[in-house]
C-alpha cells in the first residue's frame, strides 16, 4: 500500500519507511516557541543543562502573544527570550513582526519539513505540506537541543472537497463546516489530509486557514500536497528554491475519506463555547454583537483584510460596535498599507493594531466586558478565551465579520456584497 503525506514526510525523517501506528524518533527541521511557551522551554533547557540549539537558524523564538507587553511580568519573560536568542544564536521574531504561524510559513518552513512548535496552531504549516504539529514547552525544548523528537505516525482522514464554493463562502466557512461535521475530537491523534479540486484551486492564504484549524478537530496535522500555488507563495516570499513537490501515493491507505461538495457549504458561524457548535447563517436569528475582531493566524492575512475592506469601503461601522483589526505579520501589514486596504478600514472606523495575536487570547488589545459578545475571525471560542469567562465569542469569516461590523448584528455577507 502507498503512503499518506504524513507517512511520507515522517519516513524521510527517520530514514526508513513507516506506516500509521508506529512510534518513531524523527529529526526535526524547524522549531518554534512563542512568548507564552518559550520562557518555560528555556527553563527546561537550563534544567537539562543544554542551553544550546542544534539548528539555531531554524529555531525561532517569537514574541507575538503579548506584543508589545502589557505587564511587567510579561516584559521580563520577553527579556528572557531576547537573552536566550543572543546567547544561542537562535532567531528572534520580536514585537511587530507578527504571529508565529504566519511568519514561520512566510520565512522558514518548506514542503516536506517537520516543524514542531510550542503552540497548538503550529499545524498551520500543513498548508505548505510540512508535517507541522503543536507540542508543549518541554517537548519543543528537547527538540531544540537535540534536533529530534518522538512521535506516533498518525492515521489519516482524507477530506476530499470538490466543486466550487458559492459567492461569499470562504475557506473559513468550509473548515467550520468540516469541524461541525466531525466534532472537536473527531480527529484526535490523527492527521487530516485536504485534497480535491476545490483545495487545488485555493490560494495559499485560504489553505493556511484550513490547516490552521485542523487542531480544532483534535488533529495532529492538517496537510495539503504542495503544488504550483505553494511554489508561487514561496516565490512571493523570495524563496522559490525551497519548493519541492510532495504528494501522497495514489494508493495511500486512509482511515476514512470524507467527501464534501463545496457548493453545499453556506456561510457558517461557530457559536459559544465550542468550535464544533456550528450553525449556518440561515439558521440564526438576531444576534447583537459588541466587538468585531479581524485578524489572527486564522484570518489575518492580506486577502482577509481586503475582503473586509471591500465590504466596509465608503461606509462606517455601526455606532454600537468596536472593530479591531490586527494584521498577521509585518509583510501583511505593509501589503495592506501599500494597496490602500488599511486606509479603507480606518476610515470605516476600524482600530488597527500592531501585527501579532492581538485580542485573540485575552491578554490585551480587546478584552471583552461582562455580558459582551464578539464576532471574531479567530479559531477558538472557548469560554474565557478573550479574557472574560462572562462573555461570548462567535467565529466566522472576515466577510461575515465586516458585514456584522456594519449592522451590529451577525449578518450574512451575501446581503452586503
Amino acid at each position, binding site marked *: 500500500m502507498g503512503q499518506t503525506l504524513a507517512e511520507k514526510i515522517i519516513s524521510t525523517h527517520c530514514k526508513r519507511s513507516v506506516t500509521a501506528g508506529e512510534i518513531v524518533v524523527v529529526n526535526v527541521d524547524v522549531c518554534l516557541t512563542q512568548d507564552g511557551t518559550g520562557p518555560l522551554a528555556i527553563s527546561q533547557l537550563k534544567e537539562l543543562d543544554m542551553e544550546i540549539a542544534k539548528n539555531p537558524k531554524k529555531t525561532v523564538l517569537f514574541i507575538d502573544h503579548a506584543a508589545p507587553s502589557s505587564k511587567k511580568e510579561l516584559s521580563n519573560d520577553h527579556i528572557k527570550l531576547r537573552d536566550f536568542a543572543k546567547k544561542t544564536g537562535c532567531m528572534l521574531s520580536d514585537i511587530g513582526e507578527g504571529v508565529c504561524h504566519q511568519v514561520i510559513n512566510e520565512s522558514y518552513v518548506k514542503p516536506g519539513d517537520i516543524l514542531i512548535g510550542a503552540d*497548538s496552531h503550529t499545524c498551520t504549516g500543513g498548508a505548505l505540506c510540512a508535517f507541522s504539529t503543536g507540542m508543549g514547552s518541554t517537548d519543543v525544548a528537547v527538540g531544540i537541543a537535540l534536533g529530534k523528537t518522538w512521535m506516533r505516525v498518525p492515521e489519516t482522514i482524507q477530506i476530499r472537497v470538490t466543486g466550487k464554493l458559492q459567492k461569499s463562502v470562504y475557506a473559513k466557512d468550509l473548515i467550520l463546516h468540516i469541524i461541525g461535521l466531525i466534532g472537536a475530537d473527531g480527529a484526535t491523534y490523527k492527521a487530516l489530509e485536504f485534497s480535491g479540486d476545490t483545495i487545488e484551486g485555493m490560494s495559499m492564504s485560504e489553505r493556511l486557514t484550513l490547516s490552521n484549524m485542523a487542531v480544532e478537530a483534535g488533529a495532529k496535522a492538517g496537510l495539503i500536497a504542495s503544488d504550483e500555488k505553494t511554489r508561487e507563495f514561496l516565490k512571493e516570499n523570495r524563496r522559490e528554491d525551497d519548493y519541492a513537490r510532495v504528494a501522497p501515493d495514489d494508493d495511500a491507505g486512509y482511515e476514512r475519506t470524507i467527501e464534501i461538495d463545496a457548493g453545499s457549504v453556506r456561510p457558517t458561524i461557530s457559536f459559544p463555547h465550542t468550535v464544533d457548535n456550528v450553525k449556518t447563517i440561515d439558521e440564526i436569528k438576531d444576534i447583537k454583537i459588541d466587538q468585531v475582531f479581524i485578524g489572527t493566524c486564522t484570518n489575518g492575512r492580506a486577502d482577509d483584510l481586503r475582503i473586509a475592506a471591500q465590504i466596509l469601503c465608503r461606509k462606517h461601522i455601526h455606532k454600537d460596535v468596536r472593530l479591531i483589526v490586527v494584521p498577521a505579520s509585518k509583510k501583511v501589514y505593509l501589503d495592506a498599507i501599500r494597496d490602500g486596504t488599511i486606509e479603507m478600514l480606518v476610515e470605516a472606523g476600524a482600530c488597527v493594531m500592531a501585527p501579532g495575536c492581538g485580542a485573540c487570547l485575552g491578554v490585551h488589545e480587546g478584552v471583552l466586558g461582562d455580558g459582551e459578545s464578539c464576532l471574531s475571525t479567530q479559531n477558538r471560542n472557548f*469560554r474565557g478565551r478573550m479574557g472574560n469567562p462572562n462573555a461570548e465569542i462567535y467565529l466566522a469569516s472576515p466577510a461575515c465579520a465586516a458585514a456584522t461590523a456594519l449592522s451590529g448584528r451577525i449578518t450574512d455577507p451575501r446581503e452586503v456584497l
Partner: protein
Amino acid sequence: MGKAHKFGDDISTDLIAPGRLFHLRSNLPELAKHVLEDADPDFAKKVKKGDFVVAGRNFGLGSSREHAPAIIKLAGVKAVIAKSFARIFYRNAINVGLPVVMCDTDKIDDSDELEIKLERGILIDKTRGIELDFPALPKVMMTILNDGGLVAHIKKHGDFCL
C-alpha cells in the same frame, strides 16, 4: 486514596489556565492558585494532595500550554481521569509527570474516594465499591512517566531512550 473532583466535557486549557493570567506563566505556584478557576471557582481551595480530577470527553483541548497539566500537578492532583484527552494535553501531562487515565467516568460521582493502580490498569471507586479497567499507557509514555517526566528522562539517558 483521594477524592474525585468531577468536571464535564470539553474542559479547555483556557478553563484550566486562562489567558487572562498569561503574566503568571513564569510563576507556576501563583498560577496554580487559579487552577481550573473558570470551570469551578472553588477548586483550588477544595483540592487536597492525592485527589483526582475526573472529567468527560476531550479533556485539555485547546492550547499547547504545558502550564495547564503543570499546575494541576502542582495543586496536588494525583491523576486526571477522563473519557478522552486532547492530544497535546495528554503528551504534556506525561512530560510533566502527571498520570492520565482514560475510562468511563460516568460511573464515578463527585467526591467518591478513588484509588488507582497505574501499572495494572485498575481504578477502584471505594465509595461505590466498583473497579474500572483502563488501557495501559503506550510503552513510550510509561517509560517517560516512570523516569519522572521528559526532562528527567533525557537527563538520565542523555537522549531519547524509548
